[in-house]
């Protein structure tokens, strides 16, 4: 019997090690060890002033920091019964979608694509496929520029505070962004085209799929949590009743279950659950690329991220135009600090992100709970690896390992988030 080990799997965010036992051509034990050191964020917010909590939770992940910041702000506002303005909601929604543009472009081109063109990394692509690299960088830069315009910088937003924003982009900046978002339509559609040509295995996950759903919009800022197979929707505030977390020995990240099943969150779950709310262009591009719900092929998560790029570009252009028309203010609303517990969820690029924050009468945090998308996905990822590995075990070792790594990367795992 031999154990194949891939230490510090490349091109994922954080440190993870895959080990697969192979005996007489059959797959034995298989697991994903999250060796990323534990970080204890939930304990670190305790005792800090409430307005520091979003600054701290934002540092869970430098890759999806706007999502953590926005989710904590919403939790604090829920705790203190603070109503925000429509304009603040609009700006925050742009921040979340901007993060989709940044994250999906980076994952698809820099982290995932090299697998499918037989390269160890993104850098040789600059010579072999300069137009692809230019496209990747331009989408990512647009995502960065959008989050910078709204949040003040591409990583760890500055301007988003409890009740509103401390600064807003100028009208000229928003107009310029809207133009660029329209102009990127070709690039994002070509991204879907590119990923639809990649030879991905046919493999369906056995897990449930979860995403936020809200009336009349592609839910990212709020909504109820809905399950694809089971068909139920439940309020976010009850998430700790239905998402159960448990500690597993080989991972510094906890594992999550729902209704006794493993489950998947992220682009594939969202596209399946919110197909009708995608921008029409995104639905057309998706259909042409051969993707129609319901798809349970884990590998299609990459294609769905590309489809969300199409959706985000067109949607953000529309939201920027709305921002130009809207005459309201995003100036932080006045509020009184009071004790309370608030729970919120948003859709981060990798899936539903939950934050709970409790504060006392003086505004100091007394408890915090965070469940990240990758933490939710890990149990399903391992279940998928167990089901998928035997189907490719006959391949030469190198290709076998590559296929398993591709499966892991299809989840776009963020292990620094997972061990928060």
């Amino acid at each position: 019997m031999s154990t194949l080990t891939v230490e510090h799997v490349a091109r994922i965010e954080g440190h993870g090690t895959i080990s697969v036992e192979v005996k007489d051509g059959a797959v034995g034990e298989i697991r994903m060890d999250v060796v990323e050191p534990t970080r204890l964020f939930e304990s670190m917010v305790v005792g800090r002033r409430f307005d520091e909590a979003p600054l701290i939770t934002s540092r869970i992940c430098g890759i999806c920091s706007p999502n953590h910041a926005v989710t904590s702000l919403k939790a604090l506002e829920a705790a203190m019964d603070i109503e925000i303005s429509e304009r603040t909601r609009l700006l925050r929604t742009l921040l979340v979608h901007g993060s989709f543009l940044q994250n999906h472009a980076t994952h698809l081109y820099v982290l995932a694509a090299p697998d499918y063109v037989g390269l160890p990394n993104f850098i040789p692509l600059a010579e072999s496929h300069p137009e692809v690299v230019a496209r990747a960088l331009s989408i990512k830069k647009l995502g960065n520029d959008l989050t910078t315009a709204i949040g003040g910088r591409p990583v760890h937003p500055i301007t988003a505070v409890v009740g509103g924003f401390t600064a807003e982009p100028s009208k000229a900046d928003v107009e310029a962004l809207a133009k660029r978002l329209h102009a990127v339509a070709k690039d994002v559609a070509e991204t879907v085209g590119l990923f639809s040509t990649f030879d991905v295995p046919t493999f369906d996950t056995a897990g449930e799929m979860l995403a936020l759903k809200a009336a009349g919009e592609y839910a990212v800022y709020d909504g109820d949590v809905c399950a694809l197979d089971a068909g139920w929707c439940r309020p976010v505030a009850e998430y700790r009743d239905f998402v159960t977390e448990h500690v597993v020995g080989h991972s510094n990240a906890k594992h999550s279950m729902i209704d006794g099943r493993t489950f998947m969150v992220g682009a594939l779950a969202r596209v399946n659950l919110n197909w009708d709310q995608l921008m029409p262009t995104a639905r057309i591009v998706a259909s042409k690329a051969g993707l129609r719900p319901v798809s349970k092929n884990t590998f299609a998560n990459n294609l769905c991220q590309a489809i969300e790029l199409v959706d985000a570009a067109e949607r953000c252009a529309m939201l920027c135009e709305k921002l130009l028309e809207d005459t309201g203010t995003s100036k932080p609303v006045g509020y009184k600090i009071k004790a309370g517990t608030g729970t919120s969820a948003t859709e981060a690029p990798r899936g539903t992100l939950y934050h709970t924050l409790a504060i006392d009468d003086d505004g100091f945090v007394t408890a915090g709970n965070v469940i990240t998308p990758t933490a939710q996905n890990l149990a399903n990822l391992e279940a998928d690896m167990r089901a998928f590995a035997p189907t490719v075990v006959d391949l030469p070792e190198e290709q076998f390992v590559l296929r398993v790594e591709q499966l892991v990367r299809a989840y776009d795992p963020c292990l620094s988030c997972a061990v928060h």
Partner: protein
Amino acid sequence: MAAHVAVISLASDFGCQVQMTNLDDKLLAVLGQFELSYWQLASSGHLPETYDVAVIEGAVTTPEHVELLKRVRATAGTVILIGACAVTGGIPGLAADGFAERLACVYGEDGSLLECVAGISPMPVDSVIDVDYRVPGCPIQPDELVAVLQRALMGLADRPQREPMCASCKVAENQCFYEHGVVCLGMITRSGCGAKCISLGRPCTGCRGVAADANLEYARQVLVERGLDPARLVTALQLYNSLQEATR
């Protein structure tokens, strides 16, 4: 021969590495001058036996980190730290106080049974090895990293900004937060970001660490004169600097 660079991450949120990728068009211009030998975030492969420059992100939180750093120092001629986690201990440093109890708090009573939770109380990198350059901030400013890489390439010594943020605020013509009774750490924080947060309407939170020329006693007096509890200065400073002398 081009200098070989390894990018190494300890406990962090990868935000500073993301900022490295955000150099966009400058990325290739700068990294093109080096040979990139290892970057786990962006490439397959293992940390090589030899390299000239180590760029380190993150705080020290495991015994493996300590061993790794000793190996890195023995291998690399130049060690560059990027970001608050590596430079001051940053946000991870917040977990240092009562570290053992915190593990129990997050992982439950059976947390101690976990074989892989072999964490140690968080530390900045320079409490384990000597370092040559520090790019501070949470996250780093990409331009500042470029400048430090250029200095490293030319063999020039690190030249940290000595003066506090207030100097930058004057240049940016920002209104002072103390006029509104809001605690701001600009008086004592190392400048170099152009007072970014303050210019966008938020007080400085000290992510760049304490400036060499900072006068903490005077800063406390300013709070007293404004009718604010001077202890709030240290409490606020703890956010990114709980492991530094100034908050002890």
